């Protein structure tokens, strides 16, 4: 078995010497570990485009009419399914291909993610050109979604192995890229559509092809520069603590054992509740600020508010994950849940007081903790289950994201509609939602409270390396 391939012979240098193989990515002695995060960022900045897919929603409903929707054009509802399918396949691919990603190594998995994500744009582009919505679903939704899932988990365990002294900061850096990707993709999509717009085309088809090329190349760049550390590598001057920290294991748990443990499902609950609370608000942020501050916030200003939340979401990923290296993972999630409950409970009062800066600040902090929850979870998994299969375990845990992606928006919009139908003024229709979010965060808090160390009987017996 290869020194760095716990799943099988994928990393055996004597049998596989291709450029994409794990054996070819082992860093030479003295390699600067800060050369690795840009590789992870290149992938996450690319796949983060998914969060900006809504930029294409309206133009995709005007493919035939060009300036206005014409008979035969796709409806907004039909187009909206594309993103949902992509997120569904993100969760499925991360869960199903996690073990393969661990055995194949980061370069091969990043290259596959690049082919899926870039190829997804090409197939979707063909669907746009032929006006076949099934091809759009298949391309961006299924193929692109697989690229999202594989790309998301590809660099995680590699970064944790490079930064055993700062695993939170390392994964925070990469996962920050997923939040930042939307900020690049939204203006890039608009720029490309403007550039390719003609009398016969609104530029969406050409933009999809251009983005497929751009993202494929950027992700392949990441795959080319990524390196894994040698099996005996440790950061200079760093020695693992001889006195084990509470809830930080030096042992490993096999992925097939890990997902059957109570700890896995408690962490699943922690992630699901944290994400549900954040994603619900994120999905309704624009109408919410307009309705809570009636007449004071235009649609354009509301879009700016959403952009600002993305900034907090991205910043929170790096800041909170780095802070967790000092606070400890369990304490960091306690902060997320306790502070989140306090802020959600305060929001209705802030709305009634009409203080927009406080409202924006409260949601900024809430969204920073939403992002922080995503970025801190890989390090939490590493603390509980060890480094051996952390990428694969992370992949399976991401099903919590897929569940929250459905639960959060449905919960917020359903409760809002129910309130309005029962005569509650729009400005106050979100109060109950906020208190329900407090309840969800309380469930997350209880899940976090229940997390204990893994029973040593479940530790993997064969040495990892």
């Amino acid at each position, binding site marked *: 078995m290869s020194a760095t391939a716990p799943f099988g012979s994928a990393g055996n240098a004597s049998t596989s010497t291709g450029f994409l193989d794990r054996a070819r990515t082992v860093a030479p002695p003295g390699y*600067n570990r800060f050369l690795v995060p*840009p*590789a992870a960022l290149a992938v996450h*900045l690319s796949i983060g485009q998914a969060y900006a897919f809504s930029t294409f929603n309206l133009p995709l409903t005007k493919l035939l009419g060009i300036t206005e929707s014409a008979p035969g054009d796709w409806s907004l509802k039909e187009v909206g399914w594309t993103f949902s399918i992509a997120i569904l396949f993100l969760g499925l691919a991360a869960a199903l291909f996690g073990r393969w990603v661990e055995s194949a190594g980061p370069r091969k998995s990043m290259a596959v993610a690049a082919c899926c994500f870039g190829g997804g744009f090409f197939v979707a582009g063909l669907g746009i050109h032929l006006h076949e919505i099934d091809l759009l679903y298949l391309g961006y939704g299924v193929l692109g979604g697989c690229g999202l899932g594989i790309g998301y988990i590809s660099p995680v365990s590699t970064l944790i192995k490079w930064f055993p002294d700062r695993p939170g900061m390392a994964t925070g850096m990469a996962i920050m890229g997923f939040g930042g*990707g939307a*900020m690049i993709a939204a203006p890039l999509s608009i720029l490309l559509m403007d550039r390719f717009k003609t009398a016969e085309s609104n530029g969406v088809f050409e933009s999809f092809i251009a983005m497929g090329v751009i993202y494929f190349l950027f992700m392949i760049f990441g795959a080319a520069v990524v390196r894994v550390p040698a099996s005996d590598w440790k950061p200079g001057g760093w020695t693992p603590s001889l006195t084990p920290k509470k809830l930080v294991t030096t042992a490993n748990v096999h992925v097939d054992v890990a997902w059957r443990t109570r700890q896995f499902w408690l962490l699943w609950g922690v992630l699901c509740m944290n994400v549900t609370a954040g994603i619900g608000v994120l999905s309704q942020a624009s109408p919410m600020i307009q309705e809570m501050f009636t007449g004071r916030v235009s649609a354009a200003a509301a879009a*700016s*508010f959403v*952009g600002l939340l993305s900034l907090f979401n991205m910043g929170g990923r790096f800041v909170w994950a780095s802070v967790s290296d000092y606070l400890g993972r369990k304490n960091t999630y306690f902060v997320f849940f306790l502070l989140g409950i306090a802020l959600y409970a305060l929001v209705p009062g802030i709305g009634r007081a009409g203080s927009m*800066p406080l409202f924006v600040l409260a949601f900024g902090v809430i969204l920073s903790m939403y992002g922080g929850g995503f970025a801190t979870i890989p390090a939490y998994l590493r603390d509980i289950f060890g480094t051996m299969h952390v990428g694969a375990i992370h992949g399976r845990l991401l099903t919590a994201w897929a569940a929250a992606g459905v639960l959060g928006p449905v919960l917020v919009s359903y409760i809002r509609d129910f309130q309005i139908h029962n005569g509650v003024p729009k400005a106050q229709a979100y109060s109950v939602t906020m208190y329900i979010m407090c309840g969800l965060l309380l469930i997350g808090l209880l899940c976090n409270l229940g997390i204990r160390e893994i029973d040593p009987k479940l530790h993997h017996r064969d040495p990892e390396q």
Partner: protein
Amino acid sequence: MARLKLFALWLIVGIPLAWGVTKTVQNAIKLFQ
């Protein structure tokens, strides 16, 4: 050489990210105008 490589790699990912953040901040400022 190693430092140059480190600088170049961070620049390649940093430029698009900085561009995206700048665009987002420019739009966000509109909220308070």
